[in-house]
């Protein structure tokens, strides 16, 4: 068959491959294969694919600006690129309804295709010939390739006389090394042809099951050891129009070991019916109904008696989780250099209809002072079958453990966080029997991080829906990340006093648990910088908390330390009222003197400044 009759071409770099291609692609003739071609030039190979695979569609990516060898003066491949593009258009004209031409740089176009959630059954990589471009095209293309899909890498042996960086071979080898275990080699000569092995079938590297040091954990422990149990807690108040999608997204998780509690938090809309329909008798789900709205934090606190998992995610009822949400979070929890209170992943923003607005991935900042990058070696951790070796390497490169002394809002909001249940219980403000009309992340993220640290995963694992009701509907939005209302900011600042109160009231227990960290943790949960702490504590609310608990603080820390810590945070009459309460009415002279002389020095300092 002459695939190229009537076409206009200057070069033929294609025909001698056709025999191989026909052989490799024969089994795809009857299927509606989606083909991606990176580097189309005059459209010769595209014509082959379109005709040999009559039900296929093709996406052609090319800059139509040419590569170095096309625009170099005097190069044997020198071409007029405008003319090349015209010829491409003409040649493919008869198949226009099956061709999606994307003019642009592959590094721009390919991520866009990923954002459109496209998958291809055949990818032909024949773009720019430098090692770096070849690698990038192949790597980005690999994520667009469907399971069992075929990738053809062209010109493996091209440019052998050129420097390694300017020919494709080195890029291809680096790429193949990186996806080791995920592909089957079908052919290697002028072209390399590989097939993508579906996760769960791969033999080398990736495995079908959960493993430690390359051994299946069932076989390693006679079934005694199981992967972590994840508890999702969906908290829904009048999100009947969204909660169904949220539940569906949890049911689709590719991680098998989870339970889900759906709390209908005093809804008055059709939520109950929607929840029942979408849970649809799935035994992993339990539905709990609260007669009145407990607020998100109230419901989260309430749920802690009900969860069985070692890891917990509070899911906002208007968000959706990506299928690999639990897999990625658990893989990170199981592989960090040191364990943390919670992990926080990136979010993709969605419009109200659930369409991803991919341009606005929330950027978590991984480059922070003292952030520890990376994961433990694959062989020394629990490896999940749903996380391929290259995904593990991706996580390794895009995860950072943030030391607990970093303050401020460092995380993605709400559903993006997976906590250790033990840490949540340790910091459980109350049993949730009373409403707390505030966000769960606003309280838990700050205090869990201050006590146990956190890790950031720079990979979007859930979708955050932007709609008019974010704030009003739930009584919570996300401070620091998205522009919440001023009202919200005030409210969330006020709530930090609850954290201070909780720690101070439990000083006996927390002093032991945290050791030398107790007072730094108290300061951290305020979210204030060091120079603002005195202002923060001068609030009557804080004075009251300390005054009421002064006798206990004195007995836990001893008189000297108690007086020192009080004076480090309070001044003047406020400090003395707390000291008086701690010393049973009478401040010992030594401490009284210290307090007064401190005030006097401050007074002098201020005067001098004036």
């Amino acid at each position: 068959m002459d695939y190229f009759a009537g076409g206009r071409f200057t070069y033929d770099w294609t025909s001698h491959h056709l025999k191989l291609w026909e052989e490799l692609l024969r089994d795809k003739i009857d299927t509606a294969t989606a083909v991606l071609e990176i580097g189309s030039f005059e459209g010769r190979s595209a014509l082959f694919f379109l005709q040999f695979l009559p039900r296929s569609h093709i996406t052609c990516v090319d800059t139509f600006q040419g590569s170095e060898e096309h625009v170099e003066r005097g190069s044997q491949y020198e071409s007029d690129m405008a003319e090349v593009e015209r010829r491409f258009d003409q040649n493919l004209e008869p198949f226009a309804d099956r061709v999606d031409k994307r003019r642009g740089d592959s590094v721009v176009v390919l991520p866009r295709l990923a954002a459109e959630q496209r998958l291809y059954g055949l990818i032909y990589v024949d773009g720019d010939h430098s090692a770096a471009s070849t690698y990038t095209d192949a790597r980005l293309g690999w994520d667009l390739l469907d399971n069992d899909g075929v990738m053809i890498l062209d010109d493996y042996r091209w440019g052998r006389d050129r420097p390694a960086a300017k020919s494709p071979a080195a890029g291809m080898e680096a790429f193949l090394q990186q996806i080791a275990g995920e592909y089957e080699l079908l052919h290697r000569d002028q072209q390399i042809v590989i097939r993508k092995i579906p996760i769960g079938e791969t033999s080398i590297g990736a495995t079908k099951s959960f493993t430690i040091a390359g051994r299946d954990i069932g076989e390693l422990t006679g079934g005694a050891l199981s992967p972590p149990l994840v508890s999702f807690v969906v908290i829904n108040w009048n999100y009947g129009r969204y909660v169904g999608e949220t539940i569906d997204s949890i049911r689709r998780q590719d991680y098998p070991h989870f339970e889900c509690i759906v709390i209908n938090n005093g809804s008055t809309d059709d939520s109950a019916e929607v929840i029942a329909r979408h849970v649809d008798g799935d035994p992993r789900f339990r539905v709990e109904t609260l007669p009145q709205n407990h607020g998100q934090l109230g419901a989260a606190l309430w749920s802690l008696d009900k969860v069985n998992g070692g890891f917990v995610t509070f899911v906002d009822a208007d968000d959706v989780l990506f299928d690999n949400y639990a897999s990625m979070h658990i893989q990170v929890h199981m592989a960090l250099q040191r364990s943390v209170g919670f992990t926080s992943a990136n979010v993709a923003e969605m419009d109200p209809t659930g369409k991803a607005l991919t341009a606005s991935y929330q950027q978590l900042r991984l480059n922070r002072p003292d952030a520890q990058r990376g994961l433990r070696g694959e062989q020394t951790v629990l490896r999940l079958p749903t996380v391929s070796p290259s995904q593990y390497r991706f996580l390794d490169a895009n995860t950072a453990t943030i030391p607990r002394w970093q303050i401020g809002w460092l995380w993605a909001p709400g559903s993006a966080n997976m906590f250790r249940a033990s840490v949540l219980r340790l910091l459980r403000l109350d049993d949730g029997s009373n409403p707390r009309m505030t966000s769960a992340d606003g309280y838990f993220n700050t205090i869990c991080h201050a006590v146990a640290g956190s890790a950031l995963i720079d990979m979007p694992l859930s979708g955050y829906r932007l709609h008019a009701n974010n704030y009003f509907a739930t009584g919570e939005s996300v401070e620091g990340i998205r522009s919440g209302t001023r009202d919200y900011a005030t409210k969330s600042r006020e709530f930090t006093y609850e954290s201070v109160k909780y720690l101070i009231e439990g000083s006996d227990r927390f002093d032991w648990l945290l050791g030398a960290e107790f007072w730094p943790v108290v300061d951290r949960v305020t979210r204030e910088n060091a120079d603002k702490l005195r202002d923060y504590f001068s609030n009557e609310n804080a004075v009251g908390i300390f005054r009421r608990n002064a006798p206990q603080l004195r007995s836990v820390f001893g008189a000297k330390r108690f007086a020192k810590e009080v004076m480090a945070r309070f001044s003047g009459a406020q400090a003395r009222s707390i000291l008086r309460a701690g010393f049973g009415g009478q401040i010992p002279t030594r401490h009284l003197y210290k307090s007064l002389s401190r005030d006097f020095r401050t007074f002098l300092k201020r005067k001098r400044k004036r």
Partner: protein
Amino acid sequence: MMAPPKVSFVIINYNYGQYVAQAISSVLSQDYSEFECVVIDNKSTDSSRDVIRQFENADDRLRIEYLDNNLNQMGGFLHVIDQLSGDVVCIVDADDFLFANFAAFHVQLHLDCGDRVAATSGGVCEVDGAGAMLTPSYAFFLHSKAGTAVRPGNIETVPRLLSQPDRELLWRQSTLIAPHEHGWHWSPGTANMYKLSFLKRARPMLNVVNSTSTDNYFMPFLSALGGSACIDIPLSAYRIHGKNRYSGIPASLDLRSTSKQSAARTAADRKAVVRTLASRARDFVSTHPHTFWTVMDATPAPDGVSRHDYFNDSVVQDILVEHFDELVAACGEAQTNSELRARMGPKSHDAFMAKVREGNARGEPDCEIRC
């Protein structure tokens, strides 16, 4: 080539009927078959005995002892130590369980490190009551700065128990802790494998050990005597449940995970090491003539107590007073005094010596009469 070493597993159970079957099964399912297993039931009052009885004829390598009294963990172990025929020993807590590759990795490291280690310690997955994983590994030795990379010795002469990739993984993930590197570098309980000869030398007197747990006593002691090695690969599971863990907090979060009371008890119990060393000073000095006093210093380090405070502790001083004559017999009067003086400070050493003289006076009434 030497014969493959034999492992003695000792499973000590008290009222862990819920978990003990998994512990026993995990020993019987080891890849490495050269072992014996002794199960000791410390007069449990729950379903334990019924559970254990089901294993009575399960395996020739298994032996079961039902005790008439609860001797605690250390007591139970000392009860059987002289019957053990292994070269290396692992004391298994009945609520933990081993992975099938546990023995092979530990024994291989003992073989490859030869006489540079008296004990090895492996990584631990913390799990909940149902066996669901909570952490990938126990924290302590991962974060400690101690230790050096393992460089295997002459491995041609030792048996090979692991595949070459596994053996290389083992070397890559292991660190050697030298005897003088004090502190706590190891995983708890079950995760450790000791050389039996060292356990026998270090064994405490049964009447003074009370509730001491075997790892708290043996691990710092054996490492100070003969060095140790840590394997940063999870090889067993450590169960966190209501009875053994304060607040249910995994150990790998850098929070205190034991209660104040139990931490104090652990520190107090470990003073038994000082008693063992002082009461058998001549024996220890014969093998550690230059490092005997350094071994003495190993005990307070895991609890973060300074040498000075430790040797001024009244319980420790009482032990030293009681065995002062043995110390002098081993080290000579001059060295004993200078070593103690360096640790206590001159003033309290003087006070200590007064106590010694007083003790001698009280301890030898016959002399007074004779004189």
